[in-house]
């Protein structure tokens, strides 16, 4: 009953989306407003139907409606209330509903915002959005239907994947999908620009904030994913270069490149072709990421492993890319724009370099991720491409990018004079060298660490120099300090939002460097009452207790931790779920600015007389989360609505 109702609504939504897409296209060609309005109504209908599907599925989860197969496989009577809600998107079918719903939501926002302002581009953008939405609805009806009957209705369901029982489940996928789907809007406008031949700056200006919004959510999703990995998966890290992490990271890299190269076009009318290509690439990579996660082609923690859906996504990806490239080729002549530049040393060059490095990093991630498939196809030999590879190639690229973060914003457009360079970079370079020397004097011997310190100090000082100089200029015209600073941030919120994001990246860079260079770990088996030591911490094994939870069984170890004085008791555990073969580690930790103490319970004797514990002292990891907060605040500042600019 529930299943049939949901399936029916999905079918109607699919029909409406197809109709709306075609109608918007016809309306765009003929210019008939009535047809475009009809397409808008169809879009509204799709949104209402997908929302209803989503609500219906949630209701089915809450009421344990095991007549729906998806509910039966992803929940059971023991699943707590909270995880019955997040369980809705805990597996393939539900995640596609969430995706479609967000796409429909973005479509509605697009209609509300751009219906009036962008007469030429808007109908085509709407048609593109609805076309993409139709594809996802097709997936929901054919390849991964969430509404399928389960006959006979089981008494109890199988249960949610235990790793998904975490508060991160509500924020991580939602933020990530909002980011992924958000890039659809710039893509839709890029398509509209290509179709209409209006490849000038209109589409860029229209989608500028959309892009930052998408970027913001994608960054947030990645950061929350890192935090989740760190505190749930129990391996002591935040980024594993897992294929699906990579899949989310690639559009982030190209999206970041786009956010920067856009500025060259806005300012200098150059790089039009490149910008449109970056948007197409970014959107293509979000589809590719979905393909990777959903097809099960590459084994990963995130994969939903499912058969036919891979082909569907690959086909759609091919269709999108071919269409987009075809349109670009068709409009080729229009892209001929002569840029001009007075000197190689200029902001344009810095931004180009930034784009080259970001896209090269994206390519590295892409090629490393698919290389195992290539190797197996060509040589028949399985290989792994993991963290050591990605770190070795990407760390130098990222460090160069951080360096450019200092150069780009302060170097002059068109031509940087010696005067300009001296004026802007004397102090940053000097203090960068001082930072390197200080790090060396304090006993830092890793070249990478010294370089990181020098670069981050250099960039931080460039930001400080710029901000104090601009503030001083305002003080000179008689403003007082705080209003001057606040006014600067608000008036030039995109520029300073960007600076705050850069600061966030610097802090993250320090955290990543610290955690790689200085973390220590040990693994030891202790009898009850015995004590071990690591990096100044002593931890004593006090025994095990067993706890029965609503849907699993938990063995909790108690370890008293001290460093001279008693710091507290940490309780890492192992959770045993009836539906899982292997137990799930449940880590316990003490977070700190300097270092985190991180305990993972290993094997234990059944009588609780002894246990193996893995202890890690992870250095500076907290800075990654702090940097993440700073970064998202900066992005929010940049998203603020454009204010009317006088002067």
């Amino acid at each position, binding site marked *: 009953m529930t299943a049939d109702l949901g399936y029916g609504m999905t079918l109607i939504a699919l029909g409406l989306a197809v109709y709306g897409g075609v109608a918007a296209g016809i309306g765009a060609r003929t210019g008939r407003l009535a047809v475009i309005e009809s397409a808008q109504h169809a879009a509204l209908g799709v949104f209402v139907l997908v929302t209803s599907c989503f609500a219906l599925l949630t209701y089915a989860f809450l009421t344990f409606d095991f007549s729906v197969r998806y509910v039966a496989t992803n929940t059971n009577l023991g699943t707590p209330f909270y995880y019955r809600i997040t369980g809705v998107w805990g597996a393939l079918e539900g995640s596609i509903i969430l995706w479609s719903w967000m796409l429909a939501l973005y479509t509605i926002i697009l209609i509300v915002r751009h219906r009036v302002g962008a007469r030429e581009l808007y109908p085509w953008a709407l048609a593109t959005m609805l076309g993409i939405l139709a594809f996802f609805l097709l997936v929901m009806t054919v390849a991964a239907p969430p509404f399928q009957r389960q006959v006979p209705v089981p008494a109890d369901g199988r249960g949610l994947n235990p790793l998904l029982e975490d508060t991160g489940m509500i924020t991580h996928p939602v933020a990530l999908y909002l980011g992924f789907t958000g890039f659809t809007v710039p893509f839709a406008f890029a398509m509209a620009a290509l179709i209409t031949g209006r490849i000038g700056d209109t589409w860029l200006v229209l989608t500028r904030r959309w892009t930052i919004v998408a970027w913001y959510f994608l960054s947030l999703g990645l950061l929350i994913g890192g935090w989740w990995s760190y505190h749930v998966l129990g391996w002591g890290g935040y980024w594993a*270069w897992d294929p699906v992490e990579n899949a989310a990271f690639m559009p982030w890299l190209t999206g970041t490149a786009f956010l920067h190269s856009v500025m060259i076009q806005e300012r200098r009318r150059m790089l039009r072709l490149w910008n449109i290509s970056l948007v197409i690439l970014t959107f293509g990579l979000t589809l590719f990421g979905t393909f990777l996660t959903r097809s099960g082609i590459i*084994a990963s923690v995130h994969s939903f492993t499912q058969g036919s859906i891979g082909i569907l996504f690959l086909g759609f990806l091919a269709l999108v890319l071919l269409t987009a490239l075809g349109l670009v080729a068709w409009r080729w002549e229009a892209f001929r724009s002569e840029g001009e*530049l007075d000197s190689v040393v200029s902001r344009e060059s810095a931004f180009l370099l930034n784009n080259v490095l970001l*896209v090269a990093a994206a390519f*590295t991630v892409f090629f490393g991720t698919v290389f195992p498939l290539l*190797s197996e196809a060509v040589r028949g030999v399985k290989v792994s491409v993991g963290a050591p590879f990605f770190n070795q190639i990407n760390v*130098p690229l990222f460090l160069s990018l951080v360096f450019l973060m200092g150069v780009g914003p302060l170097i002059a457009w068109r031509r940087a004079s010696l005067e300009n360079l001296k004026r802007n970079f004397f102090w940053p370079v000097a203090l960068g060298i001082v930072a390197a020397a200080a790090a060396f004097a304090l006993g830092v011997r890793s070249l990478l660490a010294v370089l990181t310190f020098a670069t981050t100090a250099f960039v931080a000082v460039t930001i400080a120099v710029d901000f104090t100089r*601009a503030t001083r200029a305002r003080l000179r015209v008689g403003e007082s300090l705080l209003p001057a600073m606040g006014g600067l941030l608000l008036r030039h919120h995109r520029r300073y939002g960007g600076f705050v994001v850069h600061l966030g990246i610097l802090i993250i860079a320090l955290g990543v460097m610290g955690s790689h260079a200085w973390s220590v770990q040990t693994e030891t088996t202790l009898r009850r009452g015995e004590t071990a030591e690591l990096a100044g911490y002593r931890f004593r094994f006090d025994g095990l207790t067993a706890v029965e939870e609503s849907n699993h069984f938990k063995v909790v170890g108690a370890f008293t931790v001290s460093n001279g004085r008693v710091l507290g008791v940490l309780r890492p555990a192992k959770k045993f779920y009836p539906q899982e073969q292997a137990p799930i580690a449940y880590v316990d930790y003490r977070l700190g600015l300097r270092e985190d103490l991180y305990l993972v319970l290993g094997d234990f004797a059944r009588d609780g007389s002894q246990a193996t514990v893995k202890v890690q002292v992870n250095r500076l990891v907290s800075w990654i989360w702090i940097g993440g907060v700073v970064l998202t605040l900066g992005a929010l500042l940049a998203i603020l609505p454009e204010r009317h600019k006088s002067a």
Partner: protein
Amino acid sequence: MSRVAIAVLIALVLLGSTGHPTAAQTAKPVNEDLVHDIAAQLRCVVCQNLSVADSPSEMASQMRAIIRERLAAGESPADVQRYFVDRYGEWILLSPPRRGFNLLVWLLPLAAVVVGLAAAAALVWRWTHGHRGIRPPPVAVDAAMSERIRRELEGRS
């Protein structure tokens, strides 16, 4: 400029590769850092994309124990790695060995950087030299120019 950048990049990549464990012959009390370094290069066979060093699984813990034993028996890190490769194949290594077909995965990203830099350099060259006629030589920076720079810096980006 770009050539320097390439040189720096290559140097950094090469420097990055010295992180491999070097043979520490004093085998008696096994150096945990060495165990960790070796384990970090090996794939946990039952996990997805976690190294033996990181994985909380039992299998990984056993593999770490094997590394410890073999080091204690006086084997070099290279021997230990070979032992795992012989048993599980190349797949066990988290970064593919740099030879034969695998060179592709190492060199293509570098090639991408080089090609990208060359393309950017060509573009900048065209922008700076592509003007019709000869432009007047850059004049020394005068007060107006400095003022313009200042305005730009303090103004919108």
